[in-house]
């Protein structure tokens, strides 16, 4: 610790700061003086031209010696000093040379103005200007030069400084005294400013030291935070990986359980056995639905959801919803209605899968919480300021309603309004949360209005871009490989590429019941060979397989086809996370079935693609 109370490094730093600031000041003042000296040079020439332009000899004239003096003596004063400022700014020798030149400029100016008393003020102005250096030595240099000039002139030519030929010795003292008088104040001012600069440097050094400490702490904390973030990201990545694996690992056996249960139900069981098997199927379905919800939520929360933007037929979507929900409503004895109000366009651009999922969730929810009465879905057009259209979707029911104070809990994950152990309605409490997140990701907001005992209305509004030109025109036929004309068009040759024997057996069982012929391959590589050899009508492709997975196998297939033919490939996978369908389509597959595959879904899918593969009917 130093005498000033600051640590020694701070004091040392303060010295450096002071020296830097002082040098900066000296350099700045040097530059000012360089400008001033050049200005004075030009001013002296102007003064000489104004006061004594020409010397006369009768009627003849020549340039007055004062003009030459102003040009050449002025240059000898201004230019070397400027060169020093250029080459050695801030140096001690530079400012002392400037002091010398400035003092001699006073002498030159006084001389060429004929000793006018006004020009003597230049001396005092020069001293004040030199005080900008805050260096008392510079003031002494200039003062010494002025005093020496007076002394020499007083000795050899007194008239040039005192205005008279005979001068008393005290005149020199008087002139020097006035210089000292001014110097006293200027030097005091310079010392004071220097003292203040030292104090400021010390404070700045102290502040820098504090800042450095704070910055070091911030850096340390930042590193800790970065480490924590990395750990969190790694944990999140591991969680996603785990979920993806779990999705596959759980769905595969569930697929087997459901399919085998279904087979069991259709295998002539006793009534009691059939009821038990149906209970197994129902429990498995519920378990699978909850698992799907959890996986969907996980995907949404990780921000990995990518929305599709496709031409979407609202009427087709409505029909699908009606088909699914009507059956469920009727099973509970409820009326169900789906209305597309006038003005709703046939086609818009959006993500049909997500929109269908939201409406199905809300519809399912409405049916679940309605014991008597009805459930309705309405789609209406609302005014929009954009080029597209804005649609409002309402899912209404005459159910039990929701108390106002409980509505805040509706959209919280894993939260149910009736959390009691005796609650009547099942489910994981994720449906509404997923719906809300999906609506938000599509740019809307999900809202609810409800009256207890009367019913509830869940609604949301979404902005859609207009459908692409020709969206409602019939689509041209895909370049599909047509079914062999000789074959029975209802019987297809289906290649199942699947590594899991249970899944393989399930699919084979279903396909055989549907009347199709089955071929099989254990991984992507053998699958590609089988496609080449057997040329099946349709391929059901598992995604996760050893040797060559379904994605890579499909990519390779598309490369080999080179656009000349198109083998229909339908992904059948237990990867049930949101976005997996997009991955399959991106790999070149034509459609997607999620495991466990229901017989009805498989039949519908095959029927859809069989229709597309039929050769065009010749016109008669």
């Amino acid at each position, binding site marked *: 610790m130093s005498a000033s109370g600051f640590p020694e490094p701070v004091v040392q730093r303060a010295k*450096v700061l002071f*020296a*830097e600031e002082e*040098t900066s000041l000296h350099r700045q003042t040097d530059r000012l003086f360089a400008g001033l000296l050049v200005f004075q040079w030009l001013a002296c020439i102007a003064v000489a031209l104004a*006061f*004594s*332009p*020409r*010397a*006369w*000899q*009768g*009627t003849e*004239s*020549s340039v*007055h*010696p*004062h003009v030459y*003096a102003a040009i*050449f*003596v002025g240059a*000898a*004063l201004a230019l*070397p000093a400027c060169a020093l400022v250029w*080459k*050695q700014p*801030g*140096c001690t020798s530079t400012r002392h040379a400037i002091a010398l030149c400035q003092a*001699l400029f006073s*002498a*030159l100016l006084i*001389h060429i103005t*004929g*000793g*006018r*008393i006004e020009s003597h003020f230049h001396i005092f102005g020069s001293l004040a200007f030199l005080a900008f250096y805050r260096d008392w030595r510079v003031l002494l240099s200039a003062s010494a030069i002025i005093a020496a000039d007076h002394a020499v*002139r007083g000795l050899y*030519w007194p*008239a*040039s400084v*005192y*205005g*008279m*030929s005979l001068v008393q010795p005290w005149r020199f003292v008087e002139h020097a005294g006035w210089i000292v008088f001014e110097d006293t104040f200027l030097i005091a001012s310079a010392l004071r400013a220097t003292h203040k600069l030292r104090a400021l440097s010390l404070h700045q050094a102290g502040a820098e030291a504090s800042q450095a400490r704070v910055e070091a702490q911030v850096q340390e904390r930042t590193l800790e935070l970065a480490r924590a973030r990395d750990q969190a990201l790694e944990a999140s990545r591991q969680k996603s990986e785990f979920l993806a694996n779990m999705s596959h690992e759980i769905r595969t056996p569930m697929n087997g359980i459901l399919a085998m249960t279904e087979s069991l139900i259709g295998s002539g069981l006793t009534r009691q056995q059939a009821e038990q098997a149906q209970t197994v199927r129902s429990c498995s379905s519920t378990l699978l639905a909850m698992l799907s919800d959890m996986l969907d939520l996980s995907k949404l929360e990780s921000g990995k959801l990518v929305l599709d933007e496709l031409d979407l037929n609202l009427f087709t979507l409505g029909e699908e919803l009606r088909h699914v929900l009507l059956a469920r409503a009727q099973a509970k004895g409820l009326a169900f209605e789906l209305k597309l109000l006038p003005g709703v366009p046939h086609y818009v651009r959006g993500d049909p899968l997500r929109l269908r999922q939201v409406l199905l969730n809300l519809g399912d929810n409405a049916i679940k919480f309605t014991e008597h009465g009805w459930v309705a879905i309405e789609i209406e057009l609302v005014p929009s300021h954009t080029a597209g259209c804005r649609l409002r979707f309402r899912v209404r029911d005459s159910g039990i309603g929701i108390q106002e104070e409980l509505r805040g809990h509706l959209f919280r994950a894993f939260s149910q309004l009736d959390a009691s152990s005796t609650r009547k309605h099942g489910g994981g409490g994720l449906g509404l949360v997923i719906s809300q997140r999906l609506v938000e990701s599509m740019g809307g907001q999900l809202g609810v209005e409800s009256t207890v005992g009367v019913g509830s209305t869940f609604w949301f509004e979404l902005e859609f871009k207009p459908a692409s030109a020709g969206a409602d025109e019939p689509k041209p036929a895909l370049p599909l490989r047509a079914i062999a004309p000789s074959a029975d068009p209802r019987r297809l040759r289906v290649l199942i590429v699947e590594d899991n024997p249970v899944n393989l057996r399930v699919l084979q069982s279903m396909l055989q019941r549907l009347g199709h012929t089955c071929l099989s391959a254990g991984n992507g590589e053998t699958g590609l060979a089988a496609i080449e050899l057997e040329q099946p009508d349709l391929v059901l492709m598992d995604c996760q397989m050893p040797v060559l997975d379904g994605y890579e196998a499909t990519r390779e297939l598309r490369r080999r086809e080179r656009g000349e033919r198109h083998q229909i490939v339908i992904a059948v996978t237990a990867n049930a996370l949101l976005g997996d369908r997009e991955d399959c389509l991106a790999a070149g597959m034509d459609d997607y079935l999620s495991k466990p595959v229901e017989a009805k879904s498989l039949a519908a899918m095959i029927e859809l693609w069989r229709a597309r593969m039929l050769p065009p009917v010749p016109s008669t």
Partner: protein
Amino acid sequence: MAGVDTLGMPLLARGRRPLVLFACAVWLSVLLVGFSALARHSAEPCLPALAPERWPAAAPIARAAQQPTLVLFLHPLCPCTHATLAELEVLLQRWEGELSVETVFTVDTDADGQWMENDSFREAAHIPGVRLSIDRGGRIAQLFGARTSGQVLLYAADGRRLFAGGITLARGHLGDNQGIEALDAWMRGASGAASATPVYGCGLVLPLTAGSPRE
């Protein structure tokens, strides 16, 4: 090559120091020579008048019969004229009404414009009690033997020449000087006052036959 110190200040290499010192010496010598030449030019007296001892009878300007008459010869374009007129004004403030003053501007025979309309005439006309004369071709100056602008001649009432010299202490330089002191002394009637002082200024316009004063 010279390096820099910790603050970026250039350091002078040892080998270059004699060169720098030599350059400084040359520079200071140039300044010394310049200022010395300037001082010498200012302080070097010019040609004094070859003035007649008595007032020339042929002079076209009048001499006062009751008081001394001061004749000042000026070149209207000489830069030193302003200093001389300033000194004359100071002198006349002390001897107002006791001294008759004739200012003679020597100009070219066909002078106009620049010669006749300038500050020298206006300044001279502004001094109270001063009469102005234009001496075309310099015949009056020749008559009085004046050769340098700023030449002052003081004649007594009886026509005797009392003083001949300049009233500035150097070329175009203001300030107390021996010329003014001598005139003051003559006006006070002091015996033994200086009768001549150096004169500083340009050469007057004179007839071609006249001597050629140097500037």
